[in-house]
């Protein structure tokens, strides 16, 4: 177990005993080196990037591009395939707008019913704009992708398949290689929403075989306002720009503009350099702890949580996927999830309750909301025990 990792997280360390932070799927806390990298950048190296011909600007530019390199390394991609965005949501919107501009009426986009709103709403917007068809793959009773339904929904007209790597509600780890195999067989490109996966298990985009992979910095111990869209270079090269502005152009005349190559084509305006630099420190942090160690520890805690829940007749765990990572949703008989979260919150246990930005999934499960535990690398067995102790209070209040 990673007993001492929590010491690297000032907010966690200082509030030890009074705060049990189990809302890591919403956002993780930050280790000191990330916060300090952010502050240091502004203290020591601050300048806008690109084309500044003085030392500070050179330094900022170098740091920004090194961050890109580090992130490429982290996910097994190439530097020029890494586009900095605000987060997963922006990454998917960028793809929805640019990919759909190349499609024709009647073409199909396939997603799954377990997607987060960020992998639902952009597709709804662009499919209705362009008369495309949005098809939604169902899940099994256990909460796994329904492969039969998936194969049925994939046709020769399918151009894009967008699937989450790891469900933020069910904890289901989807078999992306299988998704890719089926999707590529009809020539569709595969987009993977990696928001929940990237801080929980080793991600290698080449091994997964997908075409695009996107994730948020703030869910992987990095700062807010920065995220990553990775795409195969040949595919990025074919995409038109989305946002226009500085940094993404080659030459602008009054009525015409030529655009730079990827990744710059997709980074209009002043980028969040400080965010990118601090995100690369989050990668350093994860690497130093070891992503496999984080995964093993979270797996162990998940097993423990499921075991403890199994002892409570008045709690139902939502879903039982084949492979579950870091996330457990549950409901308490006769108590609304918001009331559960309020009572736990009052005991210093931070969990999330609601639809988790996955209303279509909630509808599918015939639930209006769930309570959710989601783990981070700093969580310990003691904390899980504190959670269960507080859960008894929920029971008492509603006795």
């Amino acid at each position, binding site marked *: 177990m990673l007993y001492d990792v929590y010491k690297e997280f000032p907010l966690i360390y200082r509030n030890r005993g009074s705060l049990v932070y189990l809302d890591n799927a919403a956002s993780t806390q930050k280790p000191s080196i990330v916060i300090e990298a952010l502050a240091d950048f502004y203290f020591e190296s601050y300048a806008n990037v690109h084309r500044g011909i003085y030392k500070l600007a050179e330094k900022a530019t170098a740091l920004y591009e090194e961050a890109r390199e580090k992130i490429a390394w982290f996910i097994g991609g190439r530097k020029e395939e890494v586009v900095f965005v605000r987060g997963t949501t922006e990454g998917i919107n960028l793809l929805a707008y640019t990919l759909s501009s190349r499609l024709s009426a009647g073409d199909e986009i396939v997603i799954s019913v377990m997607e987060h709103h960020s992998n639902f709403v952009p597709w709804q917007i662009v499919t209705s704009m362009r008369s495309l068809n949005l098809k939604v793959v169902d899940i099994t009773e256990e909460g796994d992708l329904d492969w039969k339904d998936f194969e049925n929904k994939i046709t020769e007209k399918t151009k894009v398949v967008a699937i989450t790597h790891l469900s933020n509600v069910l904890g289901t780890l989807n078999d992306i290689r299988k998704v890719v195999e089926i999707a590529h067989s009809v020539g569709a490109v595969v987009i993977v929403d990696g928001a929940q996966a990237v801080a929980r298990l080793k991600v290698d985009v080449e091994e997964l075989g997908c075409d695009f992979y996107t994730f948020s910095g703030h869910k992987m111990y990095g700062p807010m306002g920065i995220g990553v869209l990775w795409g195969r270079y040949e595919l990025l090269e074919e995409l038109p720009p989305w946002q226009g502005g500085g940094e993404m152009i080659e030459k602008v005349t009054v009525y015409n503009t030529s655009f730079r190559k990827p990744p710059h084509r997709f980074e209009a305006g002043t980028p969040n350099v400080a965010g990118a630099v601090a995100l690369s420190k989050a990668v350093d942090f994860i690497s130093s702890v070891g992503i496999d160690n984080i995964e093993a520890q979270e797996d162990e805690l998940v097993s423990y949580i499921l075991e403890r829940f199994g002892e409570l007749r008045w709690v139902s765990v939502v879903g039982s996927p084949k492979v579950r990572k870091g996330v457990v949703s549950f409901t308490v008989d006769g108590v*609304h*999830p*918001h009331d559960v979260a309020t*009572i736990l919150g*009052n*005991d210093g246990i931070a969990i999330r309750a*609601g*639809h988790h930005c996955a209303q279509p999934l909630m509808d599918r499960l015939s639930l*209006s909301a769930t309570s959710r535990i989601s783990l981070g690398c700093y969580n310990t067995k003691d904390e899980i025990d504190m959670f269960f102790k507080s859960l008894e209070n929920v029971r008492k209040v*509603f006795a």
Partner: protein
Amino acid sequence: MIDSLYRDLIIDHYKFPRNFRRIESATVVKEGDNPLCGDKITLYLKVENGKVVDVSFEGSGCAISQASTSLLTETVKGKQVEEIKCIVGEFLAMLTEGKQPSVDLGKLLALEGVKNYPMRVKCATLGWHTLEQALKEIG
């Protein structure tokens, strides 16, 4: 502290909501929801000569939203519309602005603790905002 939120009265009204039924002959039926958290209610009012002679609700959601609406029905039944408007104003001011009520809110004071839980205030006010809308409709 949690007891100041989930008072026995609240839990009781959640578990055993009062006036939880339809009124077929209602003067006004109004639906309210908090789409962000999924609480839903339907409020039925029967008004005669400026007086609420019967009131009821149906709905689903958290303890706070359901108990608050249940208490609402108890409070307004038999009262004049004008008086009810005043109570609604005082109740909402208590929760959203932290104001001391200038009339006696009686049992409704059991909900005062909600104001310390900013994320839950919307639950407690759902029924009351719906009532406000309903009263506007009858003019």
